[in-house]
């Protein structure tokens, strides 16, 4: 056994034997929680749960499938050993921003045995413009330090006032924003107020400090017709420019997706609710999917949990390791490759090693 790694036996002992074996994917034991890193910060792990889209039907009824995705993530985190220091929630707790949905989500998340850091998604925001979220759940943007790493949470799903004022009712506004392929859509942005706040927040942070930015939408531009897009992304990237090591984790895209722009590594998180196809599968308009990304397997709707999952992040050597946990598919590990200068999929980067389902449909 390598130092700093967990053996399967250790894991099972820690997590409670047979109970864990029946619920947790066995591949979890592969997680390395330490190593020979040169990082100055203390090593730690955190989990990331995103995009459950809990949907209220009527009364106390919610869409069963989406509830079960979030519950599965919560149970798995609670059974992990060592327990992650905290969970980042990546946004879109609700489907239509309803209080019933947010309350229901908070009730499910209250079963987590670790603290949660919240990021707001557009589905949580556009009914009341974030009021209930701020009152009951979390601030929209904030920062915190953890074991030598500076974390910044941004509300990246704001948009133009002209678009917000275009709709007659809050419900209409929410419904328009909730439709991904909406030709009446409006791109996301962080906005100048928050950009000023970000500058100020980073003022006293040394350039060598590992920086982790948490947002809902990707802080770069991928595909505008589906709003895989943040309009003022370049402004934020330029503020982060002076740091040696920046990682952005985001939700929203419901797929395995990563990128490197100069000093910034970007990683997308899986949804626990349903997967999205890659924009390139819509042939009517061009897209900017990063070339380095190895696509996830096609989803098979026969399996409710296929194409969905969550992630486990390992901060080691001041660089993160992204463990995509795909519940009905093979797990994926994406690591920053020092020689390549960008993240690479540790198994499937070479075209000849890609498995069949990644290209078929």
């Amino acid at each position: 056994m390598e130092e700093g790694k967990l053996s399967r036996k250790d894991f099972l002992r820690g997590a409670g034997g047979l109970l864990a074996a029946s619920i947790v994917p066995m591949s979890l034991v592969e997680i390395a929680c330490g190593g020979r890193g040169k990082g100055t910060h203390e090593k730690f792990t955190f989990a990331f749960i995103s995009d459950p889209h809990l949907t209220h039907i009527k009364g106390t009824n919610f869409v069963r499938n989406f509830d079960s995705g979030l519950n599965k993530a919560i149970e798995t985190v609670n059974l992990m050993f060592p327990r992650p220091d905290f969970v980042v929630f990546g946004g879109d707790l609700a489907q239509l921003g309803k209080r019933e949905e947010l309350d229901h989500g908070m009730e499910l998340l209250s079963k987590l045995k670790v603290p949660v850091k919240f990021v707001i998604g557009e589905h949580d925001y556009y009914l009341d413009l974030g009021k209930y979220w701020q009152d009951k759940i979390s601030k929209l943007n904030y920062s915190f330090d953890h074991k030598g790493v500076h974390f910044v949470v941004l509300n990246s799903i704001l948009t133009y006032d002209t678009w917000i004022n275009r709709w007659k009712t809050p419900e209409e506004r929410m419904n328009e924003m909730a439709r991904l392929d909406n030709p009446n859509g409006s791109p996301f942005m962080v906005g100048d107020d928050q950009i000023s706040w970000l500058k100020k927040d980073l003022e006293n942070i040394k350039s060598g400090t590992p920086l982790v930015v948490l947002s809902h939408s990707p802080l770069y531009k991928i595909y505008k017709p589906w709003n895989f897009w943040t309009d003022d992304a370049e402004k934020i990237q330029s503020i982060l420019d002076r740091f040696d090591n920046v990682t952005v984790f985001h939700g929203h895209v419901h797929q395995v997706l990563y990128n490197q722009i100069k000093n910034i590594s970007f990683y997308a998180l899986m949804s626990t609710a349903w997967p999205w196809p890659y924009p390139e599968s819509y042939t009517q308009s061009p897209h900017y999917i990063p070339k380095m990304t190895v696509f996830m397997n096609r989803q098979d709707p026969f399996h409710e949990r296929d194409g969905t999952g969550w992630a486990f992040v390992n901060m080691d050597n001041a660089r993160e390791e992204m463990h995509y946990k795909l519940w009905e598919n093979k797990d994926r590990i994406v690591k920053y490759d020092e020689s390549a200068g960008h993240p690479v999929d540790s198994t499937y980067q070479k075209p000849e090693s890609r498995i069949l389902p990644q290209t078929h449909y």
Partner: protein
Amino acid sequence: MDDRHTLGNRSKSKILLGIFISVFFLIFGTVSLVFGDDWDKSNEDKWNAAFMETVARGEKLFHGPELGGNTVQCAMCHPNATNTHPETYPKFQKQIGKVSTLREMINWCIQNPLQGKPLAYDDPKMIALEAYIMFERRNSVLAPGKH
């Protein structure tokens, strides 16, 4: 039976048929020049408009809660009808366990993720859904059976 008599009758019938056909085409041909269904640009515009209307109905169904029982919509998993691959049907569909058509798969989705009731294959809603899906996948290469 007398062969000659029969032949004579046949000749008469042929002549009568010939006259009938000539008159028919003379009248119909003349009329059709005025009232006929010959193709011109306005026909095509009309047919295209009818098709696009059906596509629009399909788009609406695809983006609304009407088909299902739990508010879930087709477009949630299939923005712009992606990952529907109509050009690959008929094909073996694992969920259904046999070689299936796109309509059967549409019904599978309505019954399972959407928790709704299946549509008749000639239901105008089914045709509208099919029209929208096909339109969004226009210019794809026809590949029946492909996975």
